[in-house]
C-alpha cells in the first residue's frame, strides 16, 4: 500500500512541476536554516576538541556582588582571591582547575604583525581538559609550583615560529621573558571558550603575585567530577558556601556566582537575573521552542495555502477512491505520506545546503579553527524537525482533501 502511495505521490510531484518546486523551495529554505542552527548549537553543547568531556565539569566565570539593599551592584570576573577562598575549598569536586581568561598580545615577526592569545593556567587544567598532543606534553604540577618559565603552544603558533621543526625544547620570548616550550597541542576551535588559546603558560610565572590579593580579576575555575551525577551536588555546595560563608568586602555583603554547564551558562547569559541563584535552562528551552515554531509558521502557512488551493486538482482521484470505499482516514494517511515524502526530499537537500554553508564558514576563517562535524545527534534532530514541519504543514490540507464529498468530487467541482 505504502508503495502505491509513494508512486502516486511521485506522479503528482511531476505533474505540476512549478508547484512542486515552490513547495520544495520553502521546505529547503526552512530546513536549511534549522539544520545550520542545530549544527551550530550541537557544536556548542557537544564540542569535539579538548572540551569534549564537558559533561564532567562545571565552570565558574562570573561574579556579582551587591550591598544589602541591592542599590549598588558590581558585575565582574572573579579574581584569584575569590576563587581561592570560595571555590578551592569545595569538597565534592575531584579536581579543581584555576585559569585566566584570554589575553590578546601582538608581536612582530619580520615586520609582520601577528596577534596571538595567551592563557595562564595551573597544572590541573591539563588533567580536566582533553588536549591532543602533537609533540611533548603539558607542564607538570611540579613545574607549575616552582614557577618554571614553560609554555605550551598550539600547532599554528608553533609553525609560525619554527616552521616544520619540532618546537619542543626551543625557547620563545613573550613580553621580554624567555619560556621553554614543553608541548605542542592541536589547534583548539575558538568556540571552545575555556580551552581555546594559542599559548598556555603557568600563572605562577606572572611577574608579581599581586593577583593573589584580588577579588576581581580575570580568573575562572573548572570543577571536575568523574561522575556527572555529582555535578548537581557541586552546584549546591558552591551556592550554600556563598550564601553562608561570604565575608563582606567593603559595602558588598552578598555575592552571586554560579558553577554552570554550557547550557546553563547560555540560559543565564540571555535570561538570567544576575542577583539570583536560579536556573534558567527551562526558560531557554521554551524560548527556543517558541522561536522555532514562529519561524516555521510562515513557510507552513505558505505550504498549507498552496496545498488547499490544489485540492481541486485531485478532486476526481479522491472521488473515485471514495466511491470504491476508501475511508477518510486512509485518504488522510495517503496525503500525509505524500507530504512527508516531499519534506524528506527537501530535508536531504537541506542537509547538503547546510553542509555547504557551514563548510564555507569553516574555510573563511571567521571563527578560528572551528569545525562543525556532522553526527548522529544532528541527523536525528534534523529528521525530527523535518517531520514536525511536514506534519504542521500537511495535516490540515490532508483532512480538508479527504473530506471532499465524493459526489461533488466526481463531478469535479468544489464550492
Amino acid at each position, binding site marked *: 500500500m505504502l508503495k502505491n502511495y509513494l508512486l502516486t505521490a511521485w506522479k503528482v510531484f511531476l505533474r505540476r512541476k*512549478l*508547484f512542486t518546486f*515552490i513547495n520544495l*523551495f*520553502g521546505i529547503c*529554505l526552512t530546513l536549511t*536554516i534549522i539544520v545550520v542552527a542545530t549544527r551550530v548549537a550541537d557544536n556548542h553543547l557537544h564540542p569535539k576538541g579538548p572540551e569534549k568531556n564537558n559533561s564532567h565539569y562545571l565552570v565558574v566565570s562570573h561574579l556579582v556582588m551587591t550591598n544589602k539593599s541591592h542599590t549598588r551592584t558590581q558585575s565582574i570576573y572573579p*579574581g584569584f582571591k575569590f576563587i581561592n577562598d570560595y571555590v578551592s575549598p569545595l569538597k565534592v569536586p575531584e579536581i579543581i582547575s584555576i585559569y*585566566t*581568561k584570554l*589575553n*590578546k*598580545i*601582538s608581536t*612582530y615577526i619580520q*615586520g609582520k*604583525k601577528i596577534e596571538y592569545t595567551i592563557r*595562564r593556567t595551573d597544572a590541573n587544567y591539563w588533567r580536566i581538559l582533553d588536549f591532543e598532543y602533537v609533540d611533548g606534553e603539558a607542564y607538570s604540577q611540579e613545574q607549575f609550583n616552582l614557577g618554571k618559565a614553560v609554555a605550551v603552544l598550539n600547532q599554528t603558533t608553533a609553525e609560525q615560529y619554527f616552521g616544520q621543526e619540532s618546537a619542543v625544547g626551543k625557547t620563545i620570548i613573550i*613580553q*621580554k621573558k624567555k619560556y621553554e616550550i614543553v608541548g605542542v597541542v592541536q589547534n583548539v576551535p575558538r568556540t571552545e571558550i575555556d580551552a581555546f588559546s594559542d599559548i598556555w603558560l603557568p600563572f605562577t610565572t*606572572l*611577574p*608579581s603575585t*599581586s*593577583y593573589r590579593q*584580588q577579588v*576581581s*580579576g*580575570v580568573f575562572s575555575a573548572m570543577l571536575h567530577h568523574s561522575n556527572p551525577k555529582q555535578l548537581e551536588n557541586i552546584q549546591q555546595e558552591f551556592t550554600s558556601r556563598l550564601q553562608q560563608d561570604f565575608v563582606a568586602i567593603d559595602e558588598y555583603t552578598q555575592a552571586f556566582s554560579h558553577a554552570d554547564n554550557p547550557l546553563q551558562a547560555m540560559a543565564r547569559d540571555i535570561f538570567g537575573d544576575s542577583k539570583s541563584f536560579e536556573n534558567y535552562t527551562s526558560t531557554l528551552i521554551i524560548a527556543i521552542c517558541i522561536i522555532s515554531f514562529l519561524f516555521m*509558521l*510562515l*513557510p507552513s*502557512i*505558505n*505550504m*498549507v*495555502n*498552496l496545498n*488547499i*488551493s*490544489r485540492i*481541486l*486538482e485531485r478532486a476526481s482521484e479522491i472521488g473515485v477512491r471514495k466511491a470504491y470505499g476508501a475511508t477518510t482516514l486512509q485518504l488522510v494517511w495517503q496525503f500525509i505520506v505524500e507530504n512527508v515524502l516531499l519534506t524528506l526530499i527537501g530535508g536531504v537537500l537541506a542537509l547538503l545546503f547546510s553542509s555547504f554553508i557551514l563548510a564555507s564558514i569553516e574555510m573563511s576563517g571567521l571563527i578560528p579553527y572551528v569545525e562543525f562535524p556532522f553526527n548522529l545527534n544532528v541527523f536525528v534532530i534534523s529528521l525530527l524537525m523535518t517531520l514536525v514541519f511536514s506534519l504542521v504543514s500537511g495535516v490540515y490540507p490532508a483532512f480538508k482533501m479527504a473530506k471532499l464529498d465524493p459526489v461533488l468530487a466526481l463531478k469535479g*467541482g*468544489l464550492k
Partner: protein
Amino acid sequence: MLRQLFKIIWKRKKANGLIVAEVAIAFIVVFFIMLLVIRNYNLYTKPLGFEYENRWNILVKAVSGSWAETIKESELEPLLLQLKQQDEIENVHRLKNPTFQDWSSTSDYELKGRNIDFMLNVMDDHAAQDFGLELTEGKWFGKLDKGLGYEPVIVNQLFIERYFNGENAIGQNISDIKSENKIEQRIVGVFKDFRQKGELNQLTPYVIYQYKKDKHAIRNIEIKLKDGTQRSFEEPLMELLTNVAPNWEFTITPWDVRRESMLNETFLPLLFASIIAAFFILLVALGLFGVLWQNVMSRAPEIGVRRALGATARGIHNQVISELMIVTSLGLLIGLVLTIQLPISGFIPEINWTLFWSAQLPASLFMLLLAVICAYYPGKIATKLLPAEALHYE
C-alpha cells in the same frame, strides 16, 4: 464595485483567511528589516562629531591581566613624555573610555527636579581639540580652570536641548546634590557631539569631565599622529612601549580599524537577516502566485459568466488584482495592529512614532507592490479564458 469584491472575498473566507495570515506575517518580517535599515541609515548620516583618522588607541594593562590595578598615574607619566618626543606623534592624550568600543560610562541623577541621564567621559586638556570636537558655545576647559573651586565640564548640544530647553547653560552647575561629593560641576563649554561608540549608536546627552591626576585612573592613551604616518609605525611604537614599561601589556589599535569592526558588528548580522528575509519574501511571493493561479483556474465558470455578460478583459484582470490587493490590505491591517503596539507600549524606547511610520509606509507599499506582481500573471491567464470554454464547465 468595492462591495461586490468584498462579497466575493467573504464567500471564500477560509482560503482568503490563510492568505491574510501569510501576508500579515510576511509584512511583519519586512517591517522589522525596514525598521533596522532606516534606524541605522538615519544614525549613520548624522555627524560623528570627531575625527578618527591618524588617531591610535593604546590600551595599557598590568601583565596579570586586570586593568583595574597596580598601574599608578605617576608611572604612566614618563611613558607619556616618551611618546610625545616621537617624531611621528603630534600629541598624546588620556581618555577614560575609548572610542568605537563597547566601553562606556553612564550616569543618572536628579538635577533641579528632573531626572537626567547621560554618557560621560574624562579627557585631559586639549584632547577635545585634538580629537576634532567642535565648540559651539563657551570655551574648552584648560589650565585656567584649575584651583578655582569648581570642576569644569563640557557638554554636547543634545544635553543642553534636553535638560536646559536649549537655553544658555554656560556657568550652570550640574553636580548631583545627593552625592557625597558636592563640588560644583560648572558647564564651561558646549560642543556639537562626541558619538563615542560610533555612527550606529543612538544619540545621547554627553558630558566630558576634566582629567585630574589624583582622581581618575585612566588606562587608555590616545595618540594623534602626524599626517602620512604609516601603519608600520606600530612595530617601533610597541618596541618603545615595552622597553619603557616591561611589566605592562599594550594593545595598539588605530581608531579607524575599530570603527570598521564596530560598523561590521551591526552590518553583518543585518545583512544576514536581510538575506534570510529576502528568501522568505520570495517564498511568499511564489506561494501567492501559485495560489492565485489555482484560484483563477477553479473560478473559470464564474469568469466565463462575467465575460458572457460583457465584462472586458481589462475588467477581469483588474478584478483579480484588486481582490488580492484587498486581501493583502487586510493582512497589512492585522500587521499594523500588531506592530503599532511597539510605539504605543514604548517597550523599545528607540522606536518612536517617526521611526515607526517611516518603516511602516515603505513596508506596506512593498507588500502591495508584491501583491500586484504576484497577481499580474494569473490575472492575465484569467483574461485568456474564452467565455465559451469557461462556461463549458457547468
